[in-house]
Structures are given as structure tokens and as C-alpha cells.
């Protein structure tokens, strides 16, 4: 894994814009990277202290992928997500207190307590849904892109998926449709090295997911997913191409999840401590913070204040979730149908 990421040569990252993000954008990136980290680490603590928040998949370690991509999108653009979706939600602007309430199964949650971690959705934030059926979100992003094209809205859709999902047929069908219809889609593969416990080397016959882009006549890039600027740059180029009507792109972000596949997964059954330590050594947040401080445009206090603000946000989110009401039994029967049937129902 590690060697693969390091062997990722800059020559593969072709056609990127060399623009530098504005100061506000950089701050926005830092704020969201750390907000995701704070959310996930607090969630892990809640799980370990026995708070029943259901099945969760921590995003810790991969933050630069979600934030780097969403930093290049407009609020009106769409994303579709995976089971490991908290980071994508936060990066796309879903409110953390409503997410936390959803995890607590409260009626104030994003999905009114009917979704849970694996279905968090905020259609107004352009977040088409966390989707735990591997690969399905990718097809939905293609649909949103089709909608944008037919309705001529200039929106783009980004489909996040893991390297495990790269093996399911739906993803390939979706890529082919997007390519033949020249849809404004970004296929963003977060290659974290493992599909649950199955290593990518086992499941993939080619070195990179991005290699598959050629089969669909679209550009494919592999970037360092621990480098938020690299992710952002690749996304900016892909978005520009999409908005011009030139069709989809595939961006493969080489990344690493720090924790297990889900809250109960013991990573040491399939990963070495050495590999994990090496990955943490390239932590996307620490690297980005160092870069920001190095350039002198930001000072320590400013970033510390942002960290403290995020901690407060998560404190508030937990308090909000705990204080929120539970759904009523009658809510079981609401929203089964979008249009209620005309006949009498029980």
C-alpha cells in the first residue's frame, strides 16, 4: 500500500490547473478536515462508552479526499456517498448536529431517525445519500448528472466510492453510461487499500483503479489522497471538464483508513502495525496544518481557535442529539409512499 502511494509519480497527474486556493478556501478546507476528524473521533469515543449509535464506519484518515473534492464543488452540485459517508456529508455541508441526532435515532436527525449512519441524506445540501449497497451511489450520481444535463443546470455530480466498489458491475455500467452520454460526473475512488479485510492487490489485476478510465474513454488520474491540495487540483480540472460538457473523469485518491472497517472490526487480523503507523505518519491534517503554518499566511492561534470551535460544535451536536425527542411509534408508518395511495390504508 505504502509503496504504491509513494510510487504515484507526478507525471500521472496530467492536465491539472496550477491555481492556488484562496485564503478563505484554505481555511474552509482546514476547518472541514478537522471537523470531520473531531466528529469521527467523538463518535468512536461514544461507541466505546456504550452509546447506541448503530453500525458506523469511521472516515478518520481519509478526510482530505472528501474535503478536497467538495472544496472544488458548488453548493448546488451533487455528491453520492458510500457506507463510510460521514466525511462526505460534513464536507458537503450537512449540519453535524442533525447528523449526530440521526445516529442517536432521534426525530431531529437528518432522516428523522429512519436512516442512521448508513443512510444520512441532505438533499438541500446536494447530498444524495450515504449508500451502503456498494456501488449503488455511483449509479445515482450518474442519474443526477443526467438530470443536470437534461435540465441544463450546469450542476455536476461527484460519486464517491471505495476501491472495493470498483469491482461491482453497477459502477462499470454507470461509468459507461456517463461516458456515452457525456454526463457531468466525477468518479472519485478512495483507494484505502482494503475492502473490509480484502487487500486491493488481491481484488485488482491492474495497478490502479484509474487505469480503467481508458476503457470508458475518459481521463483517469491517480492522486495522493493524503494531500488535500492534490485532490482539490484534480477535482477542479475534472469539474471544469464536466461543466464544459466534455463528460466524466475518474480520480483515484490513494488513502488509508485509520480504524477498522466498522466499529467492531479488528484491523490487526489483516494489517500490520508497521503499515498503520506509516500511514498515520502521512496524516492529511497534520501535513496540511504544517503547510499552512510554513507559508506564514496562518498563525498557530488562528488554527487552534478553529480546532476549539470544532470541538464546541461536536459538544453541541452531542448535547442536541441527547436532548432531542425520539420518534413516535406512529412515525413507523409515515413516508412509506411519496404520494399516499388514494384508497383507505390501515
Amino acid at each position, binding site marked *: 500500500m505504502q509503496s504504491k502511494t509513494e510510487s504515484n509519480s507526478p507525471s500521472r497527474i496530467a492536465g491539472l490547473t496550477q491555481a492556488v486556493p484562496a485564503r478563505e478556501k484554505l481555511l474552509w478546507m482546514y476547518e472541514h478536515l478537522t471537523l470531520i476528524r473531531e466528529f469521527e473521533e467523538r463518535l468512536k469515543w461514544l461507541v466505546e462508552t456504550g452509546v447506541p449509535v448503530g453500525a458506523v464506519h469511521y472516515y478518520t484518515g481519509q478526510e482530505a479526499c472528501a474535503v478536497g473534492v467538495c472544496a472544488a464543488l458548488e453548493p448546488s452540485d451533487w455528491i453520492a456517498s458510500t457506507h463510510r459517508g460521514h466525511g462526505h456529508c460534513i464536507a458537503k455541508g450537512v449540519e453535524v448536529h442533525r447528523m449526530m441526532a440521526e445516529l442517536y435515532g432521534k426525530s431531529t436527525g437528518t432522516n*428523522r431517525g429512519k436512516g442512521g449512519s448508513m443512510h444520512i441524506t441532505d438533499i438541500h445540501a446536494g447530498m444524495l445519500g450515504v449508500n451502503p449497497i456498494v456501488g449503488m451511489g455511483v449509479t445515482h450520481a450518474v*442519474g443526477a448528472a443526467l438530470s443536470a444535463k437534461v435540465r441544463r443546470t450546469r450542476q455536476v455530480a461527484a460519486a464517491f466510492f471505495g476501491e472495493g466498489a470498483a469491482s461491482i458491475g453497477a459502477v462499470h455500467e454507470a461509468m459507461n453510461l456517463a461516458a456515452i452520454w457525456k454526463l457531468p460526473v466525477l468518479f472519485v475512488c478512495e483507494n484505502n487499500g482494503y475492502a473490509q479485510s480484502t487487500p486491493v492487490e488481491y481484488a485488482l489485476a491492474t495497478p490502479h483503479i484509474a487505469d480503467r478510465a481508458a476503457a470508458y474513454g475518459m481521463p483517469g488520474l491517480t492522486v495522493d489522497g493524503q494531500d488535500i491540495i492534490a485532490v482539490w487540483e484534480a477535482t477542479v480540472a475534472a469539474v471544469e471538464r464536466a461543466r464544459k460538457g466534455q463528460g466524466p473523469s475518474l480520480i483515484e485518491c490513494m488513502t488509508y483508513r485509520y480504524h477498522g472497517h466498522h466499529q467492531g472490526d479488528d484491523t490487526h487480523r489483516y494489517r500490520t502495525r508497521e503499515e498503520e503507523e506509516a500511514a498515520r505518519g502521512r496524516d492529511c491534517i497534520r501535513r496540511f496544518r504544517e503547510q499552512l503554518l510554513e507559508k506564514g499566511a496562518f498563525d498557530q492561534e488562528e488554527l487552534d481557535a478553529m480546532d476549539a470551535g470544532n470541538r464546541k460544535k461536536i459538544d453541541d451536536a452531542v448535547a442536541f442529539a441527547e436532548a432531542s425527542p425520539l420518534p413516535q411509534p406512529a412515525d413507523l408508518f409515515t413516508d*412509506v409512499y411519496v404520494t399516499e395511495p388514494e384508497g383507505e390504508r390501515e
Partner: protein
Amino acid sequence: MITAGVRELSFGQAINEAIRQEMRRDPTIVVMGEDVAGGAGRAHLGFVDAWGGPLRATRGLITEFGPERVLDTPIAEMGFLGAGVGAAMSGLRPIVEIMFVDLIGCCYDQIMNQAAKMHYMMGGQVDLPLVIRTAYGTRGGDNRTYGGGAGAQHSQTLYAVLAHIPGLKVVVPSTAYNAKGLTISAIRDNGPVIVLEHKFLGLRAKGPVPEDAYTVPIGRAQIVRKGRDVTLCGIGRMTHICSEAADSLLSEGIDAEVVDVLTISPLDEDTILESVSRTRRLVVVDEDTPTASMARDIAARVADKGFDDLDAPIKTVTAPDTPVPFAAVLEAHYTPGAAQVISAVHSLFGTGA
């Protein structure tokens, strides 16, 4: 109630008209599927001679609405149905054709886990105005029927696996009239609706269809023939089999009522229960295989809620628990017919063989 002209249209033409009129009304409606345009709607052919799917239901739409709204797809049910789901979540009203219901195996997740559940599991925040049209059924042993002799993987009647999923509406038109009305209702519904179109009816059935757009309500069964002695409850093509049986039964003095279910989910229990409360007897006729079927579901509901009104056991007439056979002679045995319905009715009265 219907003032404009009424013409004789085929079942497939009625659906075509429904889609065409709705597409004129609402620019967000798009049609997607394999060969819905035909020949990929190629410009050098003038977009005219589209194949238009197995029932010709989408034929010629590309001429009027262009290739951006009438989308031929590659053979990728999971992909394009997923695109339909995503498009429905984000501002379009897609009508997706799965050529034959037998192919839902290729895209079942999009139906079962995605389209059906989105609205509920997202707490009601997304609408999903998606129509899935698909052809089904046997030729009933008749070699001349289009799609006849298609065998086990292209002749099924998969009502139960669709009706079983909460959140989906599943409608089964039986005439050209209700095919148009139910299709329009399906298109106007803000949630996912599956329209099951019988291949036999698709090209054979003809009937009066008003020119104007109109709706037939989803979730309502219809009593298509009044009778006093027994309720024959039919779905899709089987409604016609029930009527055929009722004609024959009348000549021996048994006055059968025929209920056309029209929507298998959500089922209109009230109409069926009301009918049985008058006739005291029920025979459900279903072209699907019987285990965990609509026939047995309807029977169970009536046994549960209409028990005190029953004067005889509830009978079901269904296909057997076998795959659909190829040979016409076997397929004729497989598909429920009027003779089996009549024999089931006889068993309720203790008459006949």
C-alpha cells in the same frame, strides 16, 4: 366525464399515448431503456422507425422529443435503472423500461433497496417520481402470440417479488383503457411505480381509449362484472380469464362477480372484502407461481378480515410451482385458464366433476 373522442387503440398504443401526452405536458419526463428509441435513434434514419420496445410502447417518441429525452441505453439494467433513481431524486421524472420483468434480477437492488426505500429511509426528504415499465407473462400456450415460446427466463409473472417490497406501488393494467389511465397515474405519482404490462395483452388487446389524458387511480380495484354467487378476483390478463369463466358459469346458473385487482400493491382490500361480503365465496386467479404469491396473500387477507362472511373455502387458481416451460402444449397447462377457474367454482358448490 370523458368528452373528447374515443378511439379503438391497442394496449401498447394506449401506453404510448399516455407517455406522449405526459411528455408534452412536463419537460422533466424522460424515457430510458434498451431499444426504447431503437437503432439508438439514429439521425440518418430521421429518428422515425424506432423499434419502441417489445410492446412498441415507446415507438416514435424520439421523433417528437429527441434523443435527449428518449434515451436508448446500453444493456445495463443496474446502471440505467440506477441513473433513473438518481435522476428522479434530482429533478427529472424518468420512465425506465426494463424490457422483460425476468430481467429485474439484473437490477433488483435498484428496485428493492434503492427506489422503494429512499423516501422512507431518508425521512421523507426526497421525492422519487420514477416509473418502471416492464413486460411479463406467458403466451398461454398460444404460438401466435408475440413473445410466445420464450421459455423460463422470458415468460414469468413476477408479481410477488415486486409487491412484497414496501414503498413500491405496483400496477397491472388489463385493458387499453386502464393501461393509459394507470400509466398516466404512475407518471404523475411522486414515488416509484412499477407498471407490469402483459405481453399477450400488449399486442392483442384492443379497446376504446379516450383521446384526452385521464387517470385511473392507483390502489383501487374495480368490479368489472356484478354477480351474486362467487367473486372471481383476477390480476392483469387473468381478469379476462375470469370474465370468460363467468360467462360460462352463468349458463349453468352461477352468477359470478369479477374483480380486477389493477394495483397489486398497495392492494385494495376493501373492494375485494366488500365483494366477498355479498357473494360469500372467493376464487383468486393469478398467473404467478403460488408459493408466497398475490393469490395466497389475497386469500389470507380475506380469511383474516372477511372470515365471518365466507360460506366456502377460498380457492386459488395459479400457475404451478415450476419454471415456465417452453413447449406450447406444456405452457398451456402451466397458464391458468377458464376451465380451471370453472372447476374451482364447482368445487365451492359441490357441483361438476
